């Protein structure tokens, strides 16, 4: 059956597929960065002693985590232009959706990371005369980050896979580009196999990296 395969189709469409891959990588990179920043803020807010603030953030996190991502993408696609009163490109509406969505997940991972550090550690740091900020910076966060890096990386792999959902607002990510070629040239098998292989390589390398980091930094 492999005799009828025509893998030359991949070469012929390489620039087109590469453009799709670029969008996927760009979106993943920006969404992970934005999600981590917003996620850290949310995590700190949720651990804050100011209860109303913690509750609002908790509601936000729980709400977004119970929504399917595709729905969130639709929302922001229709909502963002209405909110700011002018049209927004699909790319930015999707990026905002991803950042808001991922931040909810990242904040939980970061919060768990900070909470996983034994309470006695902050007492010990403060008993030595370190201020609260110094204790966070030199004692709590270095341990928290070690605990959460592997999980953050895993979540980012999921994020990469989820970028394929952007086809719903007409963007051409890697999978969508492959899909276009597949139906135009009637070569679905080759293209979907190729897409699977590329995702497999990226995700497998990333999980290996996560494992290695986990072993290296295990306390």
């Amino acid at each position, binding site marked *: 059956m492999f005799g009828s395969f025509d893998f030359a189709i991949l070469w012929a469409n390489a620039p087109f597929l590469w453009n799709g891959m670029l969008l996927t990588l760009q979106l993943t990179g920006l969404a992970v960065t934005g999600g981590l920043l917003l996620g850290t803020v949310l995590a700190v807010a949720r651990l804050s002693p100011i209860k109303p603030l913690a509750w609002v953030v908790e509601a936000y996190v729980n709400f977004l985590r119970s929504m399917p991502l595709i729905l969130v993408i639709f929302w922001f696609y229709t909502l963002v232009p209405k909110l700011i009163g002018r049209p927004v490109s699909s790319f930015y509406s999707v990026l905002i959706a991803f950042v808001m969505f991922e931040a909810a997940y990242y904040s939980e991972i970061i919060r768990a990371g900070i909470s996983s550090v034994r309470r006695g550690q902050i007492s010990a740091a403060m*008993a030595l005369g370190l201020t609260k900020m110094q204790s966070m910076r030199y004692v709590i966060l270095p341990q928290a980050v070690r605990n959460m890096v592997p999980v953050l990386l895993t979540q980012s792999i999921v994020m990469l896979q989820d970028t394929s959902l952007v086809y719903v607002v007409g963007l051409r990510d890697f999978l969508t580009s492959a899909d276009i070629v597949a139906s135009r040239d009637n070569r679905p098998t080759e293209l979907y196999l190729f897409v699977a292989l590329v995702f497999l390589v990226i995700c497998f390398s990333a999980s290996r990296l996560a494992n290695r980091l986990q072993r290296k930094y295990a306390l």
Partner: protein
Amino acid sequence: MIELKNVSKWYGPFRVLDDCSMSIAKGEVVVICGPSGSGKSTLIKCINGLEPFTKGTITVEDISVGDRSTNLPKLRSRIGMVFQNFELFPHMTAAENIVLAQQKVLGRDRAAAEAKGHELLDRMGLAEQAAKYPSQLSGGQQQRVAIARALAMDPIAMLFDEPTSALDPEMITEVLDVMVKLAEEGMTMAVVTHEMGFARKVANRIVFMDQGTIVEDADKESFFGTPRSERAQLFLSKILQH
């Protein structure tokens, strides 16, 4: 040097400390004992402000711990504290554990802080362990590193919160030996412990607590001779049975 006057503390409706008063003079070693849940640990954590208290005053060299204007980090840097679970920083080597606060709090340069650290580790018999991480050390070694970490700040007094309770029996001695030496060198110490052998050897006074109150505050001889309170007698008979 350390003065507690009518200190009380509530967790909601539950009273953890009830009108506790005591003092520790310079060079004195005070052992605080009592059944678990009697408030001993809470009491010594109030001394360096790790635990807030509701009523009363605590002063350390005439600086009021509960006063809002007091620079607590500065005050804490002058009082060493040793915890039941050691609480070494697991992402740092033994040497780095001792260097951190010397640099960040006292502003010593790295070389001076490291020199101090090595001198102290040497004194603790741990010169070989300087580059090891806490997870590579035994409990007794970890606790001695923790003592060295506290001593590196040149404290005016040391607080010990059940320093041997988390240790295997064979490691208790190595930690107590260090503490005895420290006491003999004239360090001011408040020690929460059940180690009555240690108390007999070096304590000047014994404070017995039960249900948040100081039931007895007596010098060593009279405490072990004839503790006045029934509760102290009962406690002693229980822990000295074997």
